[in-house]
């Protein structure tokens, strides 16, 4: 009984977070580390486990508001109401759960889970020079693409992408950006080889995906033919992207006008 109340408390809390994700992304990211996919997966799994009858309709309601309301202010208000009501319900249900004993074993286990998570996400000592270039450059790219988020060493179809930059709102028409980092892109044969590899990596994301070949050393005055693959030089010493090369990428991703709006100074 108390386990069921705990699961329902978590379920309604996650529904509140789901509503928060839709109406206030900045606040959501301040409080939670979940992606929308993980959040949806956790909600679905708890709905299956608890067989709760109310939760699916709350989830449907959130989706209906997001998809069906043209008025952003109204949608925001409604989602905020759902967020608050869901959290209150989670809090009420939480009060029904008797405290578990603070056994050392339990605390140790919960600690161990989190250590595993942090080791997986931040492999200390395993960051090589190339990964460092990828991460630094992607940070600089994200400064100019504020509605995007990055995943590093992303695995798909038995391939590992150096970085995948995705729009936060997956229902938007914005393209995903696949990044492939090379130590040098000077030799034409190497560039061609890198392009083929990048094209293979881009395939699962459809024809609208944008590809970036990233390197600290790029053949001077060289431009790639084609509309969706770009060379990008990143200077690790000055933390600067090649302005012209990045302008072309930004235009391809956001469109010319959006780029001007999103342009922010270097960090």
């Amino acid at each position, binding site marked *: 009984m*108390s*386990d069921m*109340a*705990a*699961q329902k*408390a*978590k379920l309604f*809390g*996650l529904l*509140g*977070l789901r509503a*928060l994700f839709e109406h206030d992304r*900045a606040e959501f*990211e*301040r*409080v*939670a*580390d*979940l992606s929308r996919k993980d*959040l949806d997966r956790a909600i679905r799994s*708890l709905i299956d486990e608890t067989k709760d009858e109310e939760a699916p309709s709350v989830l449907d309601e959130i989706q209906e508001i997001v998809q069906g309301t043209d008025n952003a202010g109204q949608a925001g208000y409604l989602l905020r109401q759902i967020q608050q009501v869901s*959290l209150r319900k*989670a*809090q009420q*249900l*939480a*009060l029904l*759960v008797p*405290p*578990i004993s603070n056994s050392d074993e*339990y*605390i140790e286990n*919960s*600690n161990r*889970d*989190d*250590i595993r*998570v*942090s080791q997986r*996400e*931040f492999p200390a000592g395993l*960051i090589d020079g190339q*990964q*460092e270039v990828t*991460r*630094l450059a992607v*940070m600089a790219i*994200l*400064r100019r693409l*504020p509605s995007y*988020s990055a995943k*590093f060493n992303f695995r798909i179809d038995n391939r590992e992408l150096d970085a995948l930059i995705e729009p936060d709102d997956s229902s938007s028409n914005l393209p995903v950006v696949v990044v492939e980092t090379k130590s040098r892109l000077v030799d034409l044969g190497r560039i061609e080889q890198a392009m083929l590899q990048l094209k293979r990596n881009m395939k699962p994301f459809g024809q609208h995906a944008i590809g970036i070949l990233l390197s600290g050393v790029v053949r001077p005055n060289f431009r790639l033919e084609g509309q969706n693959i770009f060379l990008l030089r990143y200077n*690790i010493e000055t*933390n600067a992207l090649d302005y012209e090369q990045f302008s072309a990428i930004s235009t391809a991703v956001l469109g010319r006008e959006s780029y001007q709006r999103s342009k*922010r100074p270097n*960090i």
Partner: protein
Amino acid sequence: MSTLAKHLNQPYGYSCQCWLAVDIANRFFNYTYRAWFSTELNPVGNGFSSNPLVIFEDLDKVVKTNDFNHGRVDQLKTRLCNWVLGSSLSPVRTANLISEIMSAPMPALRPQLWKIDLSNIHVSRIVNLGQFYNEYQLRDLVRQEIEVIAQ
């Protein structure tokens, strides 16, 4: 090493945390802290919601005057509940922590102002950029990287 100090061109980051958040992190997250920081104590370009000094001042006043009806109290408790809900803790542990947060007395919300040494933190540990220009997130801060400069 490409440190955050080099990358952001600032030696320190500043963050405001409440005692209860730190205590929960100590007990259930292996003394590992999830913190938003800015590279200035009073980043005037940020909004009040991501200004460590403003948050510290507000919370300090709220706690010292026992102003339990202040909006910050509800906001902070909601944020702590959402943090716990979005974590990998089990449903029972999550529910217990929510009860604990809701019934936490005012002194548990007393703020700490942190100075984070960015010169030993690799840039790849930044996991998020915030709503404002000078707002960054780390999820794996440890005690040795933090100095409590006011509480």
